[in-house]
């Protein structure tokens, strides 16, 4: 009986895996159904030799699951995981990412570039060999060789082979990087592709994995301990190292100006701008000062982190931030001159700047950040206080915060126009919405499926106050969009209260349907109340934000980039406020009603008031997002506020990790980035299908989300270990 049960399990698993292969065959490819013949796409997907490949995937999966117990001991050996991650990164870079942005290469991926390059004469044979002029498919071949060497050395424990793999991996990575830069110089285009960078990072990971394989003979990798040692050793030290690497790339290999045309590195800048009327300090900066500042900032950052002296920390912060300001003024100056002379059709400052100076700004920010971390940790020296582990964790978080901040500040200017728009109109706005919804869903545990309604209310409030709706505001209330923010917040607060007050007696799922209904009601009113909202046509001509405050005059509207910095300020303020909120009395009250409402009530929490506050605070965030959206895009109509969007925001929050602020941000950013990324990978209509699949897989394999909240993580793994399958079969009485 037992034996046949095992056999049955295997058969079931095999059938499941093969079925998965068939589904994958249906998903992948360009076949599209047609109305005349419902079986067309099915036949195209199934009755072709390629089905064998997908069934092969299914079979491989079956084998992997069945023999996992044999494989897993190797997989936890030291070095295995960096090796696997690096290989995955390189595969992704080869298969998915752009290697050039030139429109001479269709698609811009490695395959297309390879075939274009191998037949071109003007490129050095060193480069052409990498792209496969001698042996077709050289990049893939090299990857296979390196990874195979690494795996063999891992399994057989051969340090020599591991050293070989590490060295070869590094060489291949550098070769690919140089080859790609050579091609990009040859093609003379503004290059924003990430393929070669990801590939070199992937190879670096492979090499470090092989290095570990060569050095360590233990059976079990200690990744957590390794991270703790690295980040706990000297607070902020890793950040200083990272800053050095980024800074060196910026100073040595990155383009500083006019990336499409002249492509000068830092060394070529002085030549390019000599005699163009650059001020003394800027020309000094470009020729030698930048190096001096870089070395000083670097030295101070290392001194501050290594010696933990407050004076060094302060100096590092001041020099780092000062260097950022100096770099920015220099950029402004030389790009103004470039604008005046009309390089590449530029007509003003801040145009045509290459990635170099922005990366350098990022590096200086990291040096300042390293000083800041050293300062914070230095103050906390207290022999009785937290253990090394806790310190390491918080160090890691601080490093990540600084890196994300530097990226948010200085990455978008180096992105293409298209990605800048995506970053503002999709990623940024939904991040703000997800932060707001996280309060309602993640912290207070109230499932709100009509969240987009508040966003709509914020947008329509802006349209009303700027006088773009059929019904006009009184003259004294005719405002610019930024001045509309407080009004939108108040109105959304009131709307949140109006929705919340009658419905908060309801439990989870009842509340869900009522909020869903509320969202639909708002949308239908917007569609139908022609005289107030201009019906399906919506409002257009909503002005862009302006600030006239004494001597300061800022007018938004020329580029997405400006809106990005405005949005960054809004997100930053919200995150700071909400971060304080999470552990405040109110935040703890939310956690209490989420976990057990009755018990919370018994401890004296006014549940209605607390829930209402959650609704109102979440709604007001959404209102701010609405104001921003309306003034950025300039026109709104009810189609911007569909039920689907509400559901998607909930999905973002849960995908990222319910109740965790970084999680909500990461979830929204990932899931709004994904469709744009998928544009290059799959037919446009299929994107939603893939996103659905990604969400599904994420929930199956990581139900707590990308970055789980600490409290949630504890709940999931259980305080008392894993329960039996029977008792968890029905999750009874869990807080929503």
């Amino acid at each position: 009986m037992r034996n046949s049960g095992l056999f049955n399990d295997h058969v079931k698993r095999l059938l499941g895996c093969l079925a998965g292969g068939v589904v994958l065959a249906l998903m992948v490819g360009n076949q599209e159904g047609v109305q005349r013949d419902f079986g067309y796409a099915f036949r195209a997907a199934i009755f072709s030799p390629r089905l064998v490949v997908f069934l092969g995937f299914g079979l491989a999966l079956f084998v992997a699951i069945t023999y996992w117990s044999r494989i897993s001991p190797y997989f936890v050996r030291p070095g295995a995981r960096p090796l696997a991650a690096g290989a995955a990164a390189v595969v992704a870079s080869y298969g998915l990412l752009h290697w050039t942005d030139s429109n001479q290469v269709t698609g811009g991926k490695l395959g297309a570039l390879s075939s274009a390059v191998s037949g071109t004469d003007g490129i050095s044979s060193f480069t052409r060999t990498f792209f496969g002029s001698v042996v077709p498919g050289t990049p893939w071949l090299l990857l296979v060789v390196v990874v195979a060497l690494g795996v063999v050395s891992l399994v057989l424990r051969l340090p020599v082979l591991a050293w070989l793999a590490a060295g070869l991996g590094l060489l291949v990575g550098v070769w690919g990087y140089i080859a790609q830069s050579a091609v990009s110089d040859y093609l003379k285009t503004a290059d924003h592709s990430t393929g070669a960078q990801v590939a070199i990072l992937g190879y670096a990971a492979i090499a470090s994995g092989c290095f570990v394989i060569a050095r360590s003979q233990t059976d079990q990798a200690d990744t957590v301990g390794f991270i703790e040692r690295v980040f706990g050793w000297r607070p902020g030290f890793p950040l200083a190292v990272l800053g050095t690497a980024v800074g060196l790339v910026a100073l040595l290999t990155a383009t500083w100006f006019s990336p499409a045309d002249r492509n000068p590195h830092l060394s070529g800048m002085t030549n390019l701008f000599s005699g163009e009327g650059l001020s003394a300090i800027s020309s000094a900066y470009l020729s030698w000062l930048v190096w001096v500042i870089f070395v000083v900032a670097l030295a101070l950052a290392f001194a501050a982190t290594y010696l933990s002296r407050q004076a060094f920390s302060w100096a590092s912060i001041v020099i780092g931030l000062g260097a950022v300001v100096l770099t920015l003024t220099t950029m402004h100056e030389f790009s103004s001159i470039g604008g005046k002379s009309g390089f590449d059709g530029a007509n003003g400052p801040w145009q045509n700047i290459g990635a170099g100076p922005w990366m350098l700004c990022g590096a200086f920010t990291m040096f300042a950040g390293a000083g800041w971390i050293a300062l914070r940790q230095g103050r906390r020296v207290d022999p009785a206080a937290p253990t090394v582990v806790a310190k390491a964790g918080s160090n890691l978080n601080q490093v990540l915060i600084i890196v994300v901040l530097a990226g948010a500040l200085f990455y978008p200017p180096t992105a293409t126009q298209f990605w800048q728009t995506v970053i503002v109109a999709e990623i940024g706005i939904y991040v703000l919405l997800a932060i707001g919804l996280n309060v309602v869903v993640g912290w207070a545990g109230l499932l709100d499926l009509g969240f987009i309604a508040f966003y709509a209310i914020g947008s329509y409030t802006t349209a009303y106050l700027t006088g773009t709706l059929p019904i006009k505001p009184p003259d004294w209330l005719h405002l610019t969009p930024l001045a509309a923010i407080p009004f939108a917040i108040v109105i959304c607060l009131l709307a949140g209260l109006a929705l919340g007050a009658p419905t908060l007696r309801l439990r989870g799922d009842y509340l869900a349907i009522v909020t869903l209904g509320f969202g639909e009601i708002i949308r239908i009113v917007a569609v139908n109340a022609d005289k107030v909202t201009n019906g399906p046509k919506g409002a257009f001509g909503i002005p862009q934000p302006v600030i006239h405050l004494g001597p300061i005059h800022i007018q938004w509207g020329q580029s997405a980039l400006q809106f990005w910095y405005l949005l960054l300020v809004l997100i930053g303020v919200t995150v700071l406020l909400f971060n304080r909120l999470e552990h405040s009395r109110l935040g703890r009250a939310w956690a209490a009603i989420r976990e057990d409402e009755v018990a919370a009530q018994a401890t004296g929490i006014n549940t209605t008031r607390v829930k209402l506050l959650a609704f109102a605070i979440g709604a007001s965030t959404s209102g701010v997002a609405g104001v921003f959206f309306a003034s950025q895009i300039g026109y709104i109509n009810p189609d911007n506020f569909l039920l689907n969007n509400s559901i998607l925001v909930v999905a973002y929050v849960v995908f990222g990790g319910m109740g965790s602020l970084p999680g909500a941000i990461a979830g929204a950013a990932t899931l709004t980035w994904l469709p744009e990324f998928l544009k290059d990978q799959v037919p446009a209509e299929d994107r939603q299908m893939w996103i659905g699949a990604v969400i599904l897989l994420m929930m199956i394999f990581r139900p707590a989300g990308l970055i789980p909240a600490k409290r949630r993580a504890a709940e999931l793994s259980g305080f008392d270990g894993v329960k039996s399958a029977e008792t968890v079969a029905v999750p009874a009485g869990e807080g929503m």
Partner: protein
Amino acid sequence: MNDFMNFVILGLTRGSMYALIALGYTLVYGVLQLINFAHSEVFMSGAFGSYLVIQSVVTDGSSPPWFAVVGIIVLGLGSGAITGAAVAWSLERVAYRPLRRRGAPKLAFLISAIGASFFLSQLAGKLFNRLNNNSFPTYFNLNKHVIDIGGVTVSLVQLIIIVSALLMMLFLDLLVSKTKLGRSIRGVAEDAPTAALMGIDIDKTISRTFVIGGALGGAAGFLFGTAFFFSNTMGFIPSVKAFAAAVLGGIGNIRGAMLGGLLLGMIEAIVPTFPWYKPGFIGTAWTDVVAFVVLVLVLIVRPSGILGERLGRAA
């Protein structure tokens, strides 16, 4: 008055379809305390599955004898039900069971179901087509008035929908209240760990509950497709309504779902008969608003639906 009665019949037709879908929500809610957001795609797949069968047995514009029409409709209901059941079963297998094993938080189930819903609806779009005007072959006169009492008319397709929906609901009611399977479903709904102690296989029961709900939803997909059009995105709106209906009647409660579905259909249908109804003011465009306002009002008075909540208690 005639107008009113005609609208009531329209409401009954619409409501019985809502009720069939709502039953899927309510059954799953009963055993898992979860909203199965992917039920809309079960409904959709029922329409596509039955279409594939129907179009292979009957050509467009043919007029078979009445018993053949009845046979084809039964075939359509059956194939829709089987497709729906198969999709619901795999849904439970893929999107629910792994999460149950991990003891995931409730919202994770919701999101995995939403992911599955996106996936299924777009996969159907890729596989068949993404147009929204697919229709079944016509093999009988849908709009023939079979009953006509002083201006109150019932068309053939309305009769088919109401009768088959009522039959299926009756069948389900008997299944849940009289059979062993029904008893185990009620047991799991009442108290899963205790039911497990009494020797009920929880996994199997949950799986079968999905299959039953899926079969009803799939059959509803066939009925909907016969009466209107079908497409890969057809599931969304009727399912939101059906979910509202299930909540209206008291989610987790089978008779509640039936009542809620019929009631919601009626409310929607009779909105235009209100005395203050003027086209352009409370037009059909406002139907959804009225429906949701009624829902909110009912829930304010009875926070757990008209008939109260649990599957175990009410059925």
